[in-house]
């Protein structure tokens, strides 16, 4: 089975803080990591390969330093990695990103594409399904279990808001995965060596035959108009006294507000 896993390098948003004076993001010292959902996508690819054989190729679009996440995937055991990097890719929204990744996928060829459910910096969850549309293949989002795989079909479970569904999916296809699917393996010693030595090819817009009007800023229908700090909430009260007094005041207040 020929598997492509799409990954993204993101700032670790749990480390991002707001400067209370300027209401802006403090980005200094915020580490770059592989999008946490993508670790599960890589693991899913590796497990499928272990089961049915084949090859796992990991791709990312980003600046040259995004190569770090590809090396991380190699250290986990993927066979190949491609970095899509080009100044013309800059400023891409989900539409242009999905277009670019789908062009690369077309060039590589595949039976299955695996993406994380969403990236933690943008939280859109759009790129996977959009890629499926560009490639004219079916997709299933929020895959929480892969029950069986054959050459032409997979049976998987899709996590919905109020239930889950068992689904038969015809290949080639794309899936996006949630964290319950698996536990990502740690890098192996051999993997780390391979990651260090790996020569990662870089593809630009011409290499994947991407049309200029569909990539980067030009290919992006959405624009960020402005950014601002989340609005604060109203009245606040810290209850004082002994623990007993605090709890009694709280219960009284909640009764007064008809919360209890």
């Amino acid at each position, binding site marked *: 089975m020929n598997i492509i896993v799409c990954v993204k390098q993101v700032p670790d948003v749990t480390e991002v803080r707001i400067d209370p004076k300027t209401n802006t993001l403090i980005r200094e010292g915020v580490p770059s990591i592989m999008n946490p959902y993508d670790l599960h996508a890589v693991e899913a690819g590796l497990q499928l390969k272990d089961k049915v054989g084949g090859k796992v190729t990991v791709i990312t679009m980003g600046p040259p330093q995004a190569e770090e996440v590809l090396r991380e995937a190699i250290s986990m055991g993927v066979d190949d990695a491609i970095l899509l990097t080009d100044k013309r890719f800059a400023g891409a929204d989900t539409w242009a990103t999905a277009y670019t990744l789908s062009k690369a996928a077309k060039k590589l060829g595949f039976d299955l594409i695996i993406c994380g459910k969403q990236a933690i910096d943008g939280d859109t969850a759009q790129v996977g399904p*959009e890629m499926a*549309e560009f490639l004219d293949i079916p997709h299933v*989002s929020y895959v929480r279990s892969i029950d069986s795989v054959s050459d032409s079909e997979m049976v998987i479970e899709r996590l*919905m808001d109020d239930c889950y569904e068992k689904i038969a999916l015809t290949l080639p296809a794309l899936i996006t995965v949630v964290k319950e699917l698996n536990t990502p393996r740690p890098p192996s010693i051999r993997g780390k060596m391979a990651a260090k030595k790996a020569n990662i090819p870089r593809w630009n817009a011409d290499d994947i035959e991407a049309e200029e009007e569909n990539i980067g800023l030009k290919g992006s229908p959405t624009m960020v*108009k402005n950014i601002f700090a989340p609005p604060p909430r109203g009245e606040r*009260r810290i209850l004082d006294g002994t623990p007993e007094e*605090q709890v009694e005041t709280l219960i009284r207040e909640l009764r007064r507000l008809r919360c209890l």
Partner: protein
Amino acid sequence: MLIRIDIEKCTGCGTCVSVCPFAAIIIKEDKAFITEACTLCGACVESCPENAIIDERGKEGTKAEEFKGVWIFAEQSRGKIASVAYELLGIGRKLADELKSELCAVLFGPSDEVEELIKWGADKVYYVNSQDYTYLDDELYSKTLINLIEQYKPEILLAGATAIGRSFIPRVAARLKVGLTADCTGLEIDRETGNLLQIRPAFGGNIMATIVSPTSRPQIATVRPRVMKRGEYKSDRTGEIINISPLKLKGRIKVLERVEDTSFCKVNLQDAKVIVSGGRGLGSPEAFSILWELASLLGGTVGASRAAVDEGWIPYAHQVGQTGKTVCPKLYIACGISGAVQHLVGMQSSDIIVAINKDPNAPIFNVATYGIVGDLKIILPLMIKKLQEGVSE
């Protein structure tokens, strides 16, 4: 560069430097300078007090005047229309009235509740009454919606930022090459341009962004459930139901089975009136049992922060926050949750928030209606005890 500095006007005040989310502007020889780190997000443009930042990003596009009307996608599950559909009608009605256009709902799959969409504000309902549409089939849903959009040309399309909406709407946007903004928490019409201002949290909810799709129509957004208010229900409101014939596709996915009675289905965070939530401060998975005790006493359920879920103390289904559920109960009690912004965005629209934490500087206190600085191991058992014996008025 599509965003550049007018050196004549720039005073080197540095406002843009602090506004830039990507640290892509530096001051060089008393003038602002945009570095290669620029992602062309445009956040700096409006910040400049001297109007010295010039935005030359493309403005030409589709003929906006051909597109009229506000549409909402009304999703159903087993024939029951989702609550978010009525919320979308609430905000949709507002936008349609402001644009002086009609509000239409799109409903796929058989449902006895079609008329409800009209009573909650829709002028028209495009209805595909076919068993093939009972479950989400992304290709079938998107192809059908694309056909409708191409035929009727709406100006705005809203869908719930739910499992269904977030899965198939991107295919629609991809095919039509139009802008799609995920998980919006605010929507307004820009009086100047008529564009839809789509407000959403970004960077894990650390910051809010306003997104526009100036050159393409329809403008599509998914909207976070439980944020928008429902409109006015009028049982005598009339409207038109337009039956749309179902498409026959070759069907590359097939839903074999729908499984409802698993643990996560029982955790109905989004409908709970009271949620008692636990975070890293609980210290152990065992500590959740006291939260369950308190929750059952209050007739509520138990939530958790990402930290507690990541520790493996409680299943993901309980997670509240940016990557979990968005909730707005009447009462939210946060126990040992520090209040990372990604958690706050998932619960800060709760009516009353109580925070219990031993760190007086924990950011959770910034959103708490009532805060108790103290030890959970003392406070929670006391609360349970007092609730059981009753506190004098």
